[in-house]
């Protein structure tokens, strides 16, 4: 018995009609936006070797990757991320190409999400990677593209900037075990104030612990920078703060202050980010829609030491938000303008006539009914305005072949 032959695996689903149209629209909009900025598309395989994602920092927990083996018994995964394979391509086939490289992509990733949480396991992403520059202009270019991408997805967007280096700068001055550092990082990222305080209470009180206590609370608008400057005096911290502030100022010059926020407590554990981090939100969706940042060490892990920055948009999330705003009817296939009905023997004529009409830009459907009467009923039921019967015009018509 085929128990599972009528359902899709958990975390996946079929997308029908209007939803597909919406999805393609978003994809095309984003793709147009990326190519207009000089980004070229690349496609990497859905299947990759496990080793590609088995990085030192363990950004991809093995229990969250779909794994299979190839014919030689080697471990493969369904790509859980798009940036790492692109880093691999840069370090190999694109090594000889001139820098900077501007690459864009539009492909799915697969992650095993916790069961029954209502999350997707297959996520379509569109994004860009700008490789070969650690300049401020490169960060700015990526942020500007992110803002355009968010705008293309909805008016009620918010973009948030942070910097992955804050944590390292503070932690350098704190002599505790790596394990404790990671726990502190988790508490800050989860804005878990009580646990963070408990942890820091076990350490001698210093400027650093004070700053760490404040860090998760430092999010919002421009006022955050002054608050941050007041809590920490470390040179490294100052430098990063000034860099972020100047980026924020540059961005708000063209994007306004209202939708551009900062969060100094953004410090994802499982990431390859080294500098600027960005996240984008749309009102009406409980998770981020866009995420990205600077990752200057990732490509070096593949043996090619070049800086890079980029972001990805979660297309599935955008589709969910947009279809909530303007609900799409679940069963509304595209309707045709003309229905062509062919009498017996006139089928070829009908195909030719349909080709002519399509060349004029019409959507033409062939009637599959035996009688013209049924064809008319079908047209009426499906909202097709014109029924075109083909029966006597062609010379071959009516002749039995």
């Amino acid at each position, binding site marked *: 018995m085929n128990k599972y032959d009528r359902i899709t695996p958990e975390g996946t689903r079929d997308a029908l009609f209007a939803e597909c149209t919406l999805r393609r629209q978003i994809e095309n909009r984003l793709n147009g936006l990326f190519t207009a900025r000089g980004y070229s598309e690349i496609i990497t395989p859905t299947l990759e070797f496990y080793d590609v994602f088995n990085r030192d920092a363990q950004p991809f927990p093995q229990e969250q990757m779909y794994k299979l083996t190839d014919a030689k018994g080697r471990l493969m995964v369904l790509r859980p991320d798009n940036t790492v394979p692109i880093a691999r391509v840069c370090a190999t086939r694109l090594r000889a190409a001139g820098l900077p490289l501007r690459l864009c992509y539009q492909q799915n990733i697969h992650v095993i999400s*916790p069961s029954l*949480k*209502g999350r997707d396991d297959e996520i379509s992403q569109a994004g860009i990677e700008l490789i070969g520059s650690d300049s401020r202009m490169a960060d700015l270019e990526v942020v500007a593209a992110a803002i355009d991408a968010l705008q293309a997805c909805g008016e009620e967007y*918010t973009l*948030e900037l942070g910097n992955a280096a804050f944590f390292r700068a503070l932690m350098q001055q704190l002599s505790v075990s790596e394990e404790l550092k990671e726990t502190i990082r988790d508490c800050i990222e*989860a*804005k*878990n*104030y*009580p*646990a963070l305080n408990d942890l820091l209470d076990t350490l001698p009180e210093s400027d650093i612990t004070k700053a760490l206590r404040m860090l998760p609370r430092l*999010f*919002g608008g421009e006022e955050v920078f002054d608050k941050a400057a007041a809590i920490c005096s470390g040179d490294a911290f100052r430098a990063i703060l000034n860099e972020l502030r100047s980026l924020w100022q540059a961005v708000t010059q063209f994007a306004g202050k209202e939708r551009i*926020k900062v*969060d100094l407590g953004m410090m994802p554990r499982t990431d390859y980010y080294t500098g600027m981090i960005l996240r984008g*939100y749309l*009102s009406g*969706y*409980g*998770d*981020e829609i866009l995420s990205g940042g600077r990752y200057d060490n990732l490509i070096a892990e593949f043996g090619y030491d070049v800086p890079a920055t980029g972001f990805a948009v979660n297309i599935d999330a955008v589709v969910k938000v947009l279809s909530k705003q303007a609900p799409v009817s679940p069963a509304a296939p595209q309707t045709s303008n003309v229905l062509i009905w062919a009498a017996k023997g006139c089928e070829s004529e009908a195909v030719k006539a349909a080709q002519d009409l399509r060349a004029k830009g019409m959507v033409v459907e062939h009637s599959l009914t035996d009688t013209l009467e049924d064809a008319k009923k079908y047209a009426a039921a499906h909202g097709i305005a014109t029924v075109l019967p083909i029966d006597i015009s062609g010379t071959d018509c009516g002749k039995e072949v």
Partner: protein
Amino acid sequence: MQRPIRIALTKGRLEKDTVGMFEQLGLDCTAVREKGRKLILPVGDGSIEVVLAKANDVITYVEHGVCDLGVVGKDTILEMQGKFYELLDLGFGRCKFALAVKKGTDFYSGYGVKTIASKYPNVTRRFFEAKGMDVDIVKIEGSVELAPLLELSDGIVDIVETGTTLKENGLEVFEDVCPISARLIANTVSMKLRQQELEALISKIESYFANK
């Protein structure tokens, strides 16, 4: 006009404690006190809405952002985990996770693999993983104290408040796992997109605790 701030409350004791706290803060909770069978109820001037849910569901609703805030026990957070901000320790609903065994037994004696019964398999697994100890975990839905009495397990990992239930069944706490209390959690995006409203409410709650 945006919808009211939605707070998911764990039905039962935490709900009562939270309502008590809200009333101390000057929020009108009449609708919650006289709720009947309704599950979504207005609080205060209508800028806040309370949703009554089971503990695990509080986390689910907050994770998905259909509720902005949630009040839930640390026990549920440790068992379920997930992506949300854990903003405040609300101080009420205090108890602890503990490993309990039959009175007078030494849990760690012998070479055999121990069996643990628990309603909280993830908490149990992590506790013993951290000790580098292999154990068999049996998930029990009801009164976990039965498992060692019926000799299904060597011990239990469960919430202990006063220890009376353990005592009456001839069990005792062998080792504490971690303390528990009610937490205020927030959806990560709501926290950013409705920062001012949420921070205003949160600092109200914080100052309530500071003055307590």
